[in-house]
């Protein structure tokens, strides 16, 4: 993949929380480099606490890395870039005091979209995620899956070339998650967005990604990048194919040891603090 085409470039990024010697000191990311090509969907997968969400936040300008550089569409990242990057968070982050349609239009207001354009774009985004009938509902009146659809609609309406998704389906049950994954694949096949998608789920990563970046345990760095050579939109049958199973197993092999390390680490940290391992 030619570097010139990269939509997102990360070079030698490290990140730590707190200062050395402090109780809360954590080295989350260590010397991580990654290129995300224009138009590709890259999944970040790794054990809990490996810094994959931290990397996503650094890419999106929501956090400043302790060292190293991030570049988006040729510009150094120094803060949020609302014209270039939209986020979908783990919890929907919809404003509960606004209806679905108000939430979507408010996002565009923040971004600076002209008033005349907001309504059309909001409607289009709602249609795209299949929530047209729920425009006037409040987030609390929707199921978790529908809330994430609405959050996705808000992000889509911003019409940014880049979408950063932080475990967007993480809080949903397996079946809702599968359907949302299939719909997302269909949606993406129609767009040329560059997407970085953080997930815990091996199946989700293989099903959605063009490439999967596998993280090591903390301090996280990218252990290996695996390509998933399968066109979008991906059919439900893909999940039962031999190719899917082989890729999933490959990911599992890469992750298994790292997850063990991560679990051991968190156990040791808990012991350091005089806590016992939570059940």
């Amino acid at each position, binding site marked *: 993949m030619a570097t010139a085409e990269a939509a997102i470039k990360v070079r030698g990024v490290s990140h730590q929380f707190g200062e050395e010697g402090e109780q809360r000191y954590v080295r989350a990311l260590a010397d991580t480099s990654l290129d995300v090509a224009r138009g590709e969907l890259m999944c970040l997968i790794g054990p809990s606490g490996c810094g994959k969400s931290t990397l996503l936040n650094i890419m999106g300008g929501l956090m400043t890395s302790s060292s190293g550089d991030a570049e988006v569409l040729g510009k150094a990242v120094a803060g949020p870039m609302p014209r270039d990057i939209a986020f979908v*968070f783990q919890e929907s*982050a919809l404003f509960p005091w606004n209806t679905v349609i108000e939430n979507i239009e408010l996002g565009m207001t*923040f*971004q*600076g979209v002209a008033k005349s354009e907001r309504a059309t774009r909001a409607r289009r985004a709602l249609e795209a995620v299949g929530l047209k009938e729920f425009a006037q509902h409040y987030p609390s009146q929707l199921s978790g899956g529908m809330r994430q659809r609405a959050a996705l609609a808000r992000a889509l309406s911003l019409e940014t070339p880049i979408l950063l998704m932080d475990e967007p389906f993480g809080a949903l049950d397996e079946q809702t998650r599968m359907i949302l994954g299939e719909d997302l694949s269909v949606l993406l096949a129609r767009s040329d967005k560059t997407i970085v998608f953080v997930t815990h789920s091996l199946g989700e990563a293989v099903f959605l990604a063009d490439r999967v970046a596998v993280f090591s345990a903390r301090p996280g760095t990218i252990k290996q990048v695996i390509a998933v050579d399968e066109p979008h939109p991906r059919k439900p049958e893909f999940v039962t194919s031999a190719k899917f199973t082989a890729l999933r197993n490959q990911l599992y092999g890469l992750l298994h040891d790292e997850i063990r390390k991560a679990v051991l680490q968190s156990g040791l940290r808990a012991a350091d603090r005089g806590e016992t391992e939570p059940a």
Partner: protein
Amino acid sequence: MISARRNRDAVASRLVQVGFLVAVILLWYLAATRWGVNRLLLPNPVAVFDDLIDILRSGEYIEDLKVTLGELAAAFAISVTGGVTLGYVISRSPYAIRVFEPLFAAIYAIPIVLFLPLFVLFFGLGPASKIALGAAISFFPIAINTVTAFGNVDRLFVTAARSMGASEYRLFRNVLLPAALPVVLSGLRMGFTIALLSIIGSETLASLAGLGHRIVQLAESMEMARMFAYIVFVIAIAAILNAVVSVLEARGRWN
């Protein structure tokens, strides 16, 4: 089915509440007419009712009501302006929250009404001392709730708004303010209630006019039925004001 049962439960509990009030009035009536309780201590509720009608008809209450409501309005305006502004400013700094929240909570817990003599010395017997006391007392719940409300806005909402490019103004107007509003409003309701209580209470202790003043005057001239009628009148006014404030509070709720 469930909503029908809930309705029935609501009706039943209303009936119990009304029944309780009727029982109290009935006991009052029996005590005053049959059990020989001194008329000076407990007037006949029928006489109280007649006096109440007379008070309402004659409009003699208007001057005192104006004084009391004027004091309440002034005190509340001061405590809302001061409490919300200061509360918001404090909420912007975690350090200030750590310093001022426990301080305000501690002051809120002391009976500020004890300082009434001091307020009277400073501001005189007229409305000014009631306004000062009412404002001082209601400032604390308003300020405390404002600090809590703005200090506990979900970080994710702020992060999401910033990621979409929200300006400082938009962040305040569309995220912080609506997120904080329910808790701020319940602080305003608490502040309003205790401002009303403390103003009427202080009128009974040291004042020149107002409903509290009128009640004490009637007590001193032994016009017990009329005094009770004024008490009922004040209760009704307080109930109406609290209902209005509760409705306003409920309208600002999203959660």
